C-alpha cells in the first residue's frame, strides 16, 4: 500500500483555484447591465449554444467557463425555481434564494471534489414596480469556489472581468435607455479591441414592462439595429 503524499490545505485550495481560473479564462466574458426598463445580458457567442438563459418569470442566468458545467447549473436553476414556484407561489421565487443555492452547491464541489467547477454564473432579477418591496433589480455573481457577491448597475463574469469593471465604472450611467446600455456593454466586452460584430453577440433582456415572463432573447437583426 502506498502512502499518499502530504499536501497542505492551503496548497490544495490554491491549486484548485488556479485550475478553475484557468478554465474560466479560456472563455469570453459576459456582462449584465441595468437599463431604464430592466436588465440586459450580453455575451460574445458566435455559436448556437446559448450562455444566457431564462430561469423564471423575473430571473435570468448567464454562465461562463466549461459549457457542460454551466449549462448543467442552468438546468438545475430552472428545476429549483419551477419546484419552488409550484410548491409556494410564483412571487416566492427570488434571485437571492437561487444565488444562495448555487453558492452552496458550487462551494461544496470546490471543497469536496477533486476537480472544482470551471464555471462562474450571474443570477439577475428584474424588479416589479407593482410588488411592494420587490421593485429593485438585483444582480448576483457566484464564482467557482462558491463565493457570492451582489452588484449594483452592472456585473461581469469571465477571465477579463477586472478590465471589464474598470471600463464600466468609468462609462456606465444608471438609468440609461437600452440602446446606450448595450453599446456600453459591448464596448466593455470588446476590451479595447475592435467592436464585436452583431452576429457574434448573444443578447437577452429582462424587460420589466412585459407581462408574465420578462425574459426575451433578441434576434440578430435587433442587435444589429441597436449597434447601428
Amino acid at each position, binding site marked *: 500500500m502506498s502512502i499518499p503524499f502530504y499536501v497542505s490545505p492551503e496548497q490544495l485550495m490554491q491549486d484548485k483555484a488556479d485550475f478553475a481560473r484557468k478554465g474560466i479564462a479560456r472563455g469570453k466574458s459576459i456582462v449584465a447591465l441595468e437599463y431604464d426598463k430592466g436588465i440586459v445580458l450580453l455575451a460574445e457567442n458566435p455559436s448556437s449554444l446559448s450562455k444566457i*438563459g431564462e430561469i423564471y418569470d423575473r430571473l435570468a442566468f448567464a454562465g461562463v467557463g466549461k459549457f457542460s458545467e454551466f449549462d448543467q447549473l442552468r438546468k438545475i436553476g430552472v*428545476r429549483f425555481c419551477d419546484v419552488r414556484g*409550484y410548491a409556494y407561489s410564483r412571487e416566492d421565487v427570488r434571485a437571492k434564494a437561487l444565488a444562495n443555492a448555487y453558492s452552496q452547491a458550487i462551494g461544496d464541489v470546490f471543497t469536496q471534489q477533486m476537480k472544482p467547477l470551471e464555471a462562474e454564473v450571474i443570477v439577475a432579477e428584474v424588479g416589479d414596480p407593482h410588488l411592494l418591496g420587490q421593485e429593485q433589480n438585483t444582480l448576483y455573481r457566484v464564482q467557482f469556489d462558491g463565493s457570492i457577491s451582489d452588484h449594483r448597475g452592472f456585473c461581469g463574469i469571465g477571465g477579463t472581468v477586472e478590465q471589464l469593471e474598470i471600463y464600466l465604472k468609468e462609462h456606465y450611467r444608471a438609468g440609461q435607455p437600452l440602446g446606450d446600455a448595450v453599446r456600453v456593454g459591448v464596448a466593455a466586452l470588446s476590451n479595447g479591441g475592435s467592436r464585436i460584430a452583431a452576429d457574434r453577440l448573444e443578447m437577452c433582456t429582462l424587460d420589466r414592462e412585459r407581462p408574465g*415572463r420578462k425574459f426575451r432573447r433578441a434576434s440578430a437583426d435587433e442587435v444589429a439595429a441597436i449597434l447601428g
Partner: protein
Amino acid sequence: MLIRGKYQGASFFELLEVDFPHLHPAANARDRVDASALQGVPHGTTVLAMRCAEGVLMAGDRLATEGHRVASRDLQKVYPTDAHSMVAIAGAAGPAIEMARMLRIELEHYEKIEGEALELEGKANKLSQMVRANLPAAMQGLVVVPIFAGYDRRRRLGRLWKYDVTGGRYEEAEFESSGSGSLYARESIKKAWRSDLGRDDALRVSLQALADAADEDRATGGVDLARGIFPIVCFCTEAGVEEVTREEIERTYREHVAIAHHHVGSGG
C-alpha cells in the same frame, strides 16, 4: 437538494415524480379514499372549443356546483397554457384546475430546459399523460375531462383535441364540447358551425352554444347580468392566445344572444 436530484430530463411532471414525490398531484391518489366523501367536491361544467377561420376558439361557462349547491359563480375554466395553446377543463374542479396549472408549468419547463417549445401535438400528448395519471382518482369519482386547443405554427391552422378518462386523445376537425351541458352545446354549434367562421361569428356561435347549454342544463351557468358575470372566451391564432374582453362578450351577448326583449305573447 440542488445538485443531488436524480432526474435529468425536461419534464416537470416527471421531475416531481422522481425527486419530489410528496409534491406530485398523484401522491395521495394511491391511498384508497372512501368515494362517498368525494361527492361534495365542486364540479365545473360546460366548456367548448371550435376551429374558425383564423385559428381556434375556446369558451367556458363560470359555474361550479357541489351537488345541487353553487360552489362558485365565477370559476375560470379556460386557461392559456403558453403563447400558442390553451386548455379548457370540465369535471372535478380541484384536480382539473391543478391539471391546467401543471400543464402550463410543464410546457414552460420544457421550453426553458430545452431552449425551444414543444410542437402542438407534443403538448397535446403531454396532457394525455396527465389525464392518464389521474385515472386512479377518476375511478373514485374525481373525473377530469379537458379539451386542448392551439395554433399549429408549422401547419398554419388551429387544432383541437378531446380526451377520455383513460388519457385517450382524439383530434377533432370541427368542434368539441365537454361537461354536463356539452350535449346541448354541441347540438347548438352543429347548426351554425362552418370552417370559415370569422372572429365575430365564432364568438356569437360560442356564446349561443353556452346559452343553450345553460338553458337546458341546471349545472351550467348562464350569463349573470345582475353580477356582471360572463363566459370566458379565448382565441388562439398565429398571433397567439388572446382573451376576449368582457365588454366585447357583453356586447355580442346583448346584440345576438339575449332573448329577453322577445317577450313571449307580447305580440311582437
